[in-house]
Each structure stands twice: as C-alpha cells, then as structure tokens.
C-alpha cells in the first residue's frame, strides 16, 4: 500500500465566487437601473435569436448549431426574467395588502 499523497494542484485560480466584488460600489446605484439593463439585455438576445432564425430559414450561411444555441439562450434568459417579474409582482401585492 502506498502512502496517501496529496493531489497535484489542478489549477491556481482561487475559488472565490464571481459575485462578491463591487457590492459596495454599486450600493449607490438604484435598483431600477439593474432592471432596465437586464431588460435591455434580454431584448437584445431575443432580437439576435430572431435574426439568426431568419438567416437559417432563408438558407443563409449560418451553422444550425449556433442558431439553436442562440434560441436556447434567449429562451433561458426570458424565463428567468419572467420569474423575477413574478416575484416582484408578489412583493408589490404584499406591500399593497398592508392595512392602515
């Protein structure tokens, strides 16, 4: 039986999440800016998917795998946006139900 040796270093990148930085710097930015940026991005992705599908259907020089991937990404981001909207509406209704 060989002694237990440590695994060789797989990579040197530290395992911090990519989410933590800039939390303080962006504390000043209002929430509606986040929402508008996100909406714009989702809109752009939908438009890209539209253009890609049009190119594929009219027989253009575009790879089918890329078109379907673009469609899938647009769909995913749209579903996420819908879930966020549902949560926001729920929160708004809860606030509305506060009886004075």
């Amino acid at each position, binding site marked *: 039986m060989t002694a237990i040796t440590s695994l060789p270093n797989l*990579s040197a*990148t530290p*395992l911090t999440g*990519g989410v933590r930085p800039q939390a303080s710097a962006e504390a000043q930015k209002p929430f509606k800016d986040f929402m508008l940026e996100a909406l714009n991005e989702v809109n752009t992705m939908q438009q890209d998917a539209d253009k890609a599908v049009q190119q594929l259907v009219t027989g253009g020089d575009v*790879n089918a*795998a*890329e078109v379907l*991937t673009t469609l*899938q*990404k647009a769909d*995913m*981001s749209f*579903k*996420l946006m819908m*879930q*966020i909207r*549902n*949560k926001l509406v729920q929160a708004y209704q809860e606030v509305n139900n506060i009886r004075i």
Partner: protein
Amino acid sequence: MMMTAFDISASALVAQRVRMDTISSNLANMSSMQRDANGEMKPYDARYVIFQTDDRISTPYGATGVKVAAVQTENVEPLYRWQPNHPYAIKEGPKKGYVAYPKVNMNAEFVDALVATRAYEANVGAMEITKSMSQQTLRILG
C-alpha cells in the same frame, strides 16, 4: 446563467462540423486533381483540421471553448498509375508516362468520421445537461 457553458458546447459543435466537412471533402476528392500556384495540375492533397482552445469563450475558472486553428494539407507521396495517353501524364523524368493520383487513406478517414460523430453527440448531450440544470435552477423561484 450558464450562458458560457452553452457557448462552449456550441463552439465544439461547430468545430466538429468543420472536421466532418474536411473528411467529406477528402472522400469526395479521392481521385481528383487540383491546380496549384503555377497553374499546373497536381493531385489533390488530403486536408486535416487542427483544433485549439479558444480563449474568447472562457469562464473565470479556466473552462475554454474550441476553435479551428488551421486546415492543413498533407504531404504524401502520390499514387502513380501507368497511363501514357492521359492528358496529365508526366512528360519526362523517371516517372514518364505515369499519372499522379491522390493517396487518401479511406479507412483513416472513416475512423475520423466516427470520432467526429461521437464527439458531436457527446457535446449535444452536454448541452442537454446544461439546459436541464438551468431549468431546475429556475425552480428556486417557483
């Protein structure tokens, strides 16, 4: 949300598609000639692709996509056939009267096509897994 994972798998699909295109080209041109830079006819050179990691599609943890770095041509000795009345027969030298044909190894090309097919399937499977992971993530919000 896992968008880079989709991009990585899509880049692999595109790369395997290019590889399959070169294999089809080699099989289609097994016996054909092509014009080289001087305008003379010489046998078709089999092409093969070189893949490389693509740093433009990468995550902070080191996962990268793939791109086609180059499409190289092979330099093998052509196949000579004795055809003295052929319009492209060699006119002088030790190979006078012979015609040079490309030497494409059909078995190697078919094995490459098999590898490309399995790699394509594997990447579509990886994309399906990523998709189902994303859909399950959405269940957090209900």
